[in-house]
């Protein structure tokens, strides 16, 4: 690192963060984050992915400020307008501004993918880690249930669930979560098995630590990196499944802006108005790709076997 060229206060901060002779727990923790950040900076592709994801979050958070039009305002006189200075990405069949709908659609996308992740991570971890830690018949029962969920084609399972629960975002989230947790549970089980009989876990047991403490305090910190990586890589498939459900009319319902549904409704006008399908398609592609790149980079950064 080119410490010398940095201005004074930054160099001090950098030295304080990079120095391994810690004087407090906070410094030790910040050091870990700082080293991860430096690794992220050193990996250009992952950093690009990180920037795009950050951009997506910013756009979703600031949607009312960024959008140029009301995303629901219809104006049939201006239907299917091509790209122009007034409508940056043209208008759809009801004369709504595609750019504004794209901006608001990022909220839907982010909402679905974050909600699925938040639901799936603890469920997958608890099921997988419990199975791996306890072993025996608990392991057999939990893993066979996981196998049953894994043996369904995920989009068909999601389709069946959203069809039976009724279309809508919340049900789409439940349906997608049902298809996403089994691989997480498997991963958590495999990771738990590798640490199950490690001496540091046995030491904790001999000191009287209960199962909850061992799972939360000892297994979670070791499983977390690979689960985070897996979830980040999963983000793109969550987004694609959400878009697929939207495309089939089982996700977000009109007039709500959702990228998959936008691409679906533009399909009828594909020959006259290419921007209706292309623009949301590019958005889905970019965000999925960004999450994949970020996940790939995180794998290198967070993997405990690298530290």
């Amino acid at each position: 690192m080119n410490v010398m060229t940095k201005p004074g206060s930054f160099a001090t901060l950098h030295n304080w963060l990079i120095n391994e002779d810690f004087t407090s727990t906070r410094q030790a923790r910040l050091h870990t984050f700082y080293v991860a950040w430096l690794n992220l900076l050193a990996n250009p592709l992952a950093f690009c992915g990180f920037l795009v994801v950050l951009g997506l979050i910013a756009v979703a958070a600031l949607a009312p400020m960024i959008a140029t039009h009301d995303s629901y305002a219809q104006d049939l006189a201006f239907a299917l307008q091509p790209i122009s200075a007034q409508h940056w990405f043209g208008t759809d069949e009801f004369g709504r501004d595609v750019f504004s709908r794209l901006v608001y659609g990022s909220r839907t996308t982010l909402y679905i993918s974050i909600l699925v992740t938040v639901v799936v991570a603890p469920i997958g971890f608890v099921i997988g880690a419990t199975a791996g830690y306890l072993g025996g018949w608990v392991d057999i029962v939990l893993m066979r249930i996981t196998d049953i969920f894994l043996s369904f084609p995920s989009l068909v399972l999601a389709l069946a669930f959203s069809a039976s629960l009724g279309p809508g975002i919340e049900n789409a989230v439940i349906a997608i979560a049902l298809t996403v947790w089994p691989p997480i549970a498997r991963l958590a089980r495999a990771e738990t098995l590798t640490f199950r009989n490690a001496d540091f876990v046995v030491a904790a047991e001999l000191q009287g630590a209960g199962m909850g403490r061992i799972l939360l305090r000892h297994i979670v910190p070791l499983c977390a990196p690979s689960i985070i990586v897996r979830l980040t890589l999963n983000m793109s498939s969550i987004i694609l499944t959400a878009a697929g459900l939207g495309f089939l009319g089982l996700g977000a319902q009109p007039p709500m802006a959702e990228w998959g549904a936008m691409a679906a409704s533009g399909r009828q006008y594909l020959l006259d108005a290419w921007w209706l399908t292309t623009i949301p398609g590019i958005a889905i592609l970019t965000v999925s790709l960004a999450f994949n790149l970020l996940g790939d980079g995180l794998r290198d950064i967070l993997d405990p076997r690298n530290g």
Partner: protein
Amino acid sequence: MSMINVERLAVSYGKGQQQVRIVNDVSFAVEKGEAFGLVGESGCGKSTILGALAGRNQQWTGRIEIDGEQIGQKRSHGQLAKQQMVFQDPFGSIHPRHTIGRTLLEPLEIHDKDRRQKRVEKALTDVGLPLNFRYRYPHQLSGGQRQRVAIARALILEPRILLLDEPTSALDVSIQAEILNLLKDLREREGLTYILVSHDLAVVAHLCDRVAVMQEGGFVEVATKQQLLDGTVTHPYTRVLMDGSRGYVTSSRNA
């Protein structure tokens, strides 16, 4: 009154058809403040006895008394704190993602002890590590330093007994001597009782007052330190073990 009293201890692994008995009807007593060695070749069951005493292996029969209290298969927190174990591999026995301070705090939280920071500082001082090591991660420490941390973690609950499972065999020869001397000092200072498992007679002779020689899950002889040093052991298997370690003993004397 003896600190540890073991009668007709038998330990096995596995269930049903695949059950294998590792230790057969072993009886011994260890006095308070004594260091008792278990030696023997790989697979003779010495670590298994230690596992049963520590509470790691619960598939045992017989009678174990620790500090005058009979121990069952399930133990209370108080019974667990009476003896603590130091493992062979210092690279695998400390949580890689916890700082040393976290590792030492963990047992205190489990047992709900007070004055935690003071106890962590005392444990680090006792094993001869600087106080700022508590903010470090294990990967920043050498093997010998990690083994000191493992000893500190075992000592932090103020146990009466330390169970040492080949505590030096993963270490460099010069570091081995440091750790052995540390263990010796600690025993004198804190009045601890040791059970030391090793395949190295030199290590056992350095630390222990009495040594049980094991073969195929049973004791063949319990020899005193003096017998080992004088070479007046009776059982032929003990002689074989002594012959095996002689080369090491003489070369270390020359050095």
